[in-house]
């Protein structure tokens, strides 16, 4: 099925969300947000999506502290994190490059990552840019570690990494990523070349499945209309004609 790259990512991430009951999506996350809305549209059981970006897209009535409490209560199954740098042990860096605190490049900060990474069972790392600049052997600053020593309380962590080129699964025991599939148009040689960390892979990896016609219709229809409320510019760019409301 012919689709835009963003639509492929939305469909791929939505598949990673199957079985979830409660998904929270942080700010500045239009593609994960669309994926969560798609997962909800396709779910046969009730699935709640909390869009933190959106004023009326979430059910927090006691302030944003409620997200963190709810995660600790086991009421959030899935969340998304990114990273200025991500390394092969799934450590993420949202602080900057170079020596902390006077980092050569400063990014905004760690936000809730240092907490949610430990408490949300299914954290999906998402970063469109797939380059050695982002996917590094070792992050310069660990905003949140991908794995923890056995004595450390941890009920969640990374399960997958989705980039513009590929989809990886994370093996927490081995603390390593395994390439699960290459997005259409990308090959293993390129991914090996542009990934700064070692990862496991089949000699001939699968190709990431794109959305079928029904799913694509869902993405371009109800999902596009809903995500446009939180991310109008994204929706206008990716779904130029979302159809009548």
């Amino acid at each position, binding site marked *: 099925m012919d689709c835009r790259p963003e639509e492929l990512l939305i469909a791929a991430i939505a598949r990673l969300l199957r079985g979830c009951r409660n998904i929270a999506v942080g700010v500045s996350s239009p593609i994960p947000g669309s994926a969560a809305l798609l997962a909800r549209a396709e779910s046969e059981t009730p699935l709640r999506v909390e869009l933190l970006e959106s004023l009326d897209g979430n059910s927090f009535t006691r*302030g944003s*502290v409620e997200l963190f409490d709810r995660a600790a209560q086991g009421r959030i199954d899935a969340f998304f994190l990114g990273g200025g740098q991500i390394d092969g042990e799934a450590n993420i860096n949202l602080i900057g490059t170079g020596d902390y605190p006077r980092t050569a490049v400063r990014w905004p*900060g760690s*936000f809730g990552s240092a907490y949610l990474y430990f408490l949300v069972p299914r954290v999906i790392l998402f970063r469109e840019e797939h380059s050695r600049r982002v996917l590094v052997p070792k992050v310069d600053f660990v905003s949140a*570690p991908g794995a923890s020593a056995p004595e450390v309380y941890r009920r969640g962590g990374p399960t997958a990494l989705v980039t513009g080129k590929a989809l990886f699964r994370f093996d927490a025991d081995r603390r390593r990523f395994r390439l699960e599939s290459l997005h259409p148009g990308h090959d293993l040689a390129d991914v090996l070349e542009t990934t700064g960390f070692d990862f496991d892979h089949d000699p001939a990896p699968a190709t990431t499945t794109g959305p079928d016609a029904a799913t694509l219709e869902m993405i371009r229809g109800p999902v596009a209309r809903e995500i446009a409320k939180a991310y109008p510019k994204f929706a206008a760019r990716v779904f130029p004609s979302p159809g009548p409301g």
Partner: protein
Amino acid sequence: MTDSCLFLSLDELAAQVPDGVSLALPKDSAGAPMAAVRALVRRGAKDLHLINVPTSGLATDILIGAGAARLVETSGVSLGEFGGAPRFNAAVKAGAVRVRDATCPAIYAGLQAAEKGLPFMPLRGVIGSDVLAFRDDWKVIDNPFAEAAEDPLLLLPAIRPEVALFHARRADRLGNVWIGVQGELAIMAHAAERTLVTVEEVVEGDLMAREESAAGTLPEVYVSAVAEAPRGAWPSGFLDLYPTDEAELADYARLARSAEGFAAYLERGCTAPAPAAGR
């Protein structure tokens, strides 16, 4: 903290934030007090310890750019879709401002410790991160209730801001402030010694009189002063009242890349009168 609420002008409100105090500011989407921040810049505020609850954007970037802050305690400073916070980033790189990097729930936990008069609050997670590694004011203990042999647990010291400052939809003439579902504003105000609020409007009647409005109201007990500031979050958006002024933010993001551009922005935006509604 026990006097009646004062009703002040913006500049009078800014004078209630003495140089050197710790100043809690909410995240941009929960009522950024931009009109008050401009008033702080106008009065030449200095040496502030900014506490972002738990993140911030334009408010913090402007105060840092204007040289008003010595220390920023934050979980993230960013202009969102308009990119990184240019003056914050430059000041960090230059070592011109100290940063106390945190993670969102740790800032809430510290404020909740203060709200409860406690020396600390525990928090799960964070262990093994460099956020913890660089915070020598945070402690890890072995959970005394653990059944396992070892259960390291983070303790965050109380954060008690000297002043909390935010923008809200409305206040009544008694000083009660409607905060709606932005419960973190209540935590901020409970934790702070004094709370200053700018509001879109001062309304007649008593917000506490009906349970429907009382449920979303911060009672005047916690409110030291209120200034009416229509469009007081501008150019940030505010709830469903007005969206972010994207042209203004884009302008800011462009100009503030350099110290000179930022100075020009300040001259235009802060020393000039507050922008009229409908801009």
